[in-house]
């Protein structure tokens, strides 16, 4: 029977997260994030870890808090809503979950470092010549005695300059079909031969190019089978798509736009919110956010029931992120020249937050699988259409 309320324990948890954010998401943390664009702050992250939230779904008998899928969803959305630095936390959850499922005993030891807030993991998938076609990765891992030698270049490895490990997709076999020659490694980023160059985005985010110059790693760093990397990737991307509601950051945009519409007057003394065109803009965004929230809740419910859908995750990401750009664009137009001054944090007003989130929204339709890739999955898996690429 449909039921659209979270249990009391989840609402209590949400209240706890909001209390935590009031205390730990300080002006200093905000300023650091605004200045660096790191998407990560060690002081804030260790405070999260101290509450047991660095890896919240780690079961109790493995030393974690064993939070359920709803609490994990709520935690991420509340971080988004408050504008907390969360990228490092977020990129760590997927590989950590996969390590728990597939990792060796030694690799599962890393989960302790993650739970204690001492380590985060970044994702090394994309390359200069392979983005959407992620299985076309060329970064080589070649057997060398007991270990491997990795050489190549990765693009957009956000947090490579702060993370302890990179969840790295490599090519180990060039003689077979591209999906069958991939292997995933958990590479320590302090290994000799790794060179990191910063890249800045239009939303002020820092990401990186990472060069692997004959980096020697032990076979113990391998995750899953040799040439079995695609199944590891599928597990990872499945988790990523199922976490793609983006409700929290969409609601942050909505709240800023609504406040700005209430407090901005036009020449005749009416507020922007008095105008039917703006009421419609805000109402449409409210509808989009309600849908994204429901899709997010459904993902959490499916996870809790061990229901796997290949279509619902991509639908969620496609809908949530495309409407994010559309709504942010409408809100920029609504605010007119008032939306032009650039955001700063702390101290940015609601209009400039709209400006920032408009820039930010574009990335959400690209990273983790572009909207075009999502549409392809939905068309094939959801409608049975032929491959269109």
């Amino acid at each position, binding site marked *: 029977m*449909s039921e659209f309320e979270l249990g009391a324990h989840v609402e209590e948890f949400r209240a706890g997260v909001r209390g935590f954010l009031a205390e730990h998401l300080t002006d200093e943390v905000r300023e650091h994030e605004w200045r660096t664009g790191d998407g990560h702050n060690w002081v804030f992250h260790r405070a999260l870890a101290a509450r047991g939230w660095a890896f919240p779904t780690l079961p109790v008998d493995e030393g974690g808090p064993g939070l359920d899928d709803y609490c994990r969803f709520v935690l991420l959305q509340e971080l988004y809503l408050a504008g907390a630095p969360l990228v490092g936390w977020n990129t760590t959850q997927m590989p950590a979950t996969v390590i728990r499922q597939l990792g060796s005993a030694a690799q599962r030891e890393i989960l302790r470092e993650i739970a204690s807030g001492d380590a985060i993991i970044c994702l090394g998938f994309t390359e200069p010549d392979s983005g959407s076609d992620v299985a076309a990765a060329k970064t080589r891992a070649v057997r060398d005695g007991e270990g491997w030698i990795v050489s190549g270049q990765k693009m957009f490895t956000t947090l490579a300059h702060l993370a302890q490990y990179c969840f790295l997709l490599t090519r180990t076999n060039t003689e077979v079909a591209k999906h069958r020659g991939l292997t995933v490694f958990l590479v320590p980023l302090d290994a000799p031969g790794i060179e990191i160059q910063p890249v800045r985005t239009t939303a002020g985010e820092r990401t990186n190019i990472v060069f692997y110059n004959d980096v020697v790693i032990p076979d113990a760093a391998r995750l899953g089978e040799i040439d079995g990397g695609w199944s590891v990737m599928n597990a990872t991307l499945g988790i990523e798509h199922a976490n793609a509601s983006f409700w929290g950051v969409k609601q942050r945009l909505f709240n800023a736009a609504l406040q700005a519409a209430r407090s901005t007057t036009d020449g005749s003394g009416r507020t922007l919110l008095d105008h039917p065109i703006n009421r419609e803009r805000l109402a449409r965004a409210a509808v989009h956010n309600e849908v994204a929230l429901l899709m997010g809740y459904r993902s959490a419910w499916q996870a809790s029931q061990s229901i796997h859908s290949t279509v619902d995750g991509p639908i969620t990401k496609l809908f949530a992120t495309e409407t994010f750009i559309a709504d942010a664009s409408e809100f920029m137009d609504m605010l007119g020249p008032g939306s032009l001054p650039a955001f700063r944090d702390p101290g940015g007003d609601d209009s400039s937050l709209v400006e920032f989130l408009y820039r930010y929204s574009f990335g959400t339709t690209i990273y983790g699988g572009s909207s075009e890739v999502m549409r392809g999955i939905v068309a094939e898996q959801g409608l049975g*259409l032929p491959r269109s690429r």
Partner: protein
Amino acid sequence: MDFSSTEEQLALASVFGQLFAKESSIERVRTAELAGGFDVALWRKFLELGGPAIAGSEAGGGGADLRHLGVVVELCGRWLAPVPIVESFVTARLLARLGAVAVPCLERVVAGDVVTIALRRWLPRGIEVVPAGAVSRGVVGLDGDELVWLLLSDQMATAVANHGSAPLRLLSANDADERLVLCDSTEAVAAFGEAVQDWKILTAGALVGLAERALELGAEYAKTREQFGGSIGRFQAIAHPLADGLAAIDGARLLCLEAQWAVDTGNARAGALASMAFAFAAETASRVVAHALHVHGGYGLTIEYDIQLYQRRAKAWALVAGDPRLEYQRVADELFGVTSLPDVIGAGIA
């Protein structure tokens, strides 16, 4: 949080799915178009399964809740069932809520008469389009400040030829054989508002069913139609808007489920969610059928191909209540408070 269906919902889906598969084939839908948009045989079968009385047959309420009626109306939309199930459910629910005064009207419902609701308030000497008005014995509507029951002549009226081939009737509140005042003033406005809210949620559900089937027709055609040496479904210009349609339909269905739940449980957000579901489902259905028709190329323009049956109804089912885009103003009123501006607001749906 729970997105699963109950045994009862699954049973309803099975029973009504079988009913429509047998009694609402595309051939029957086309035949009904030539007979005023109503299939008497299907209506009788519907009565055998409980008919409008499923939604309310006794004074004081007690009919099935929206979560169960929602299962039926989505199938109704999917099969374009040429019987006014949404309107009769809404009217039966309204009458059941009204208590003793509506007992004679409920007797009509139980007897199997078609009953309906005039969705827009009658102004003095006004004439409004009433959905299913051409095949109904009883019409409930807001006549000024009075909520009235109009008993119409048992002669079937001629439907005006219309976009959705529905049994629409242009009706004034004075056209009745009998006129019974059910309640008045604020009580009337509140009862009517509640019924219109039910109508929006159930119509949104029917539009979801319609849109999903239209999308399937578009996808099926794209898989079989060959041009440039292969099926046109392999072109992203064809496939990707279909994918966007599936996502929007999924979203519209979730909004319907939440709105149904909100009404059934007396949640304070019911009004906002009903308007959200209606506005978004109407817009989604309209957009989905447009692309699904376009995928068919020139064939989509012909009467022979079925997609046009969906295309016309996607607009027609929503528009009997007014401009669906104005529903976003209602969402705004619910969420942000009523605006200080007098213009525009209130000109749309009652």
